[in-house]
């Protein structure tokens, strides 16, 4: 079970700044364990951010995104008290959605 994300959303000027930390191994599929067996790839493939039902960012990731990924972006508008929603899906089909209130 994946742990919750840590999402911060703050109004900066006429935009909302979003910073997200995700709990994920982001295993590359290149590493070997002590027995010399390849550790299978396990990584987030898709990230979507929505505000008021509208997609404000959509990403495709490969395993080269660092472990416990960090993502920061900004979108125009966004009102204090409203919510930003982030969803990720990984290559095992695991999915996690969290939201944060814009401050």
């Amino acid at each position, binding site marked *: 079970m994946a*742990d*919750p*994300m*840590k999402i911060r959303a703050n109004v900066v000027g006429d935009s909302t700044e979003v*910073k997200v*930390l995700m*709990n*994920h*191994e982001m295993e590359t599929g290149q*590493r*070997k*364990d*002590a027995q010399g067996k390849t550790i299978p790839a396990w990584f987030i493939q898709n990230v979507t951010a929505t505000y008021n039902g509208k997609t404000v960012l959509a990403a495709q990731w490969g395993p080269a995104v*660092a*472990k*416990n990924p*960090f993502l*920061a972006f900004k979108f125009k508008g966004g009102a204090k008290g409203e919510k930003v929603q982030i969803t990720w899906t990984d290559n095992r089909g695991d999915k996690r959605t969290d939201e944060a209130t814009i401050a």
Partner: protein
Amino acid sequence: MNQIRWRLAAGVAGVALATFAAHAPGQGSTVDEIAKYRAALQDGNPAELWEARGEELWKRPRGPKNVSLERCDLGLGPGVVKGAYAQLPRFFSDANRVMDLETRLLYCMTTDQGMTDADARKQLFGNGNDRKSDMEAIVAYVTSESKGVKMNVALDDAHVREMYALGERMFYFRGGPHDFSCATCHGEDGKRIRLQDLPNLTTKEGAQKAYTTWPAYRVSQGEVRTFQWRLYDCFRQQRFPELVYGSDASIALTTFLARNANGAAFDAPAIKR
């Protein structure tokens, strides 16, 4: 335990250094650029993920007695977390022992929550998502509640005073095949290993800077490591045998360093290479 990781890290280092040496700029700009690298990491510390999980673990009823750690006394009264870490280690009369945070948590898990010692120690160092460490998460949470609080370890108690004196001896103890002591690397100003700056832990400024920035999210490991781990891994590199988690030697050294950091604002969990 972390053998795979260490070996991999060493392999990467070899390749990277070779490339690096071939076309790197001068030494001065190297140091500047690494400072920039560290600065760029400050915004968005994955340790926050550990803090959140730790808070949940602190408040969740666990163990055979099905109680939360909220009755655990970290020195400021049962359940008081705010500022507690800045005054540790201290003497706990219920345990008749000087304890650092990690040792105190093990005590609370076994006495209050009724866990066996083995259960409480099951995953002291986390290793990936399949082997997460509850201890590292709880410590991340508790220490985060001392952010900005000035370090204030008291030596009024004779037990703590003795631990401090023992910690100082430990700091200068040379041993193992390499004759290393803590002081070998941490006894002078302005030294570094490879490009890694070494704090001089014999000075107030050095101890303050080092002690107030642990625990830390180690980007090299993708894990939050606590001060117990810091000591454990220093001794590994000193070529000593394995430091027992929560042992008197670990508490003595922690007492020595924490006390020397008195007066500085605590600033962790941090993020380090």
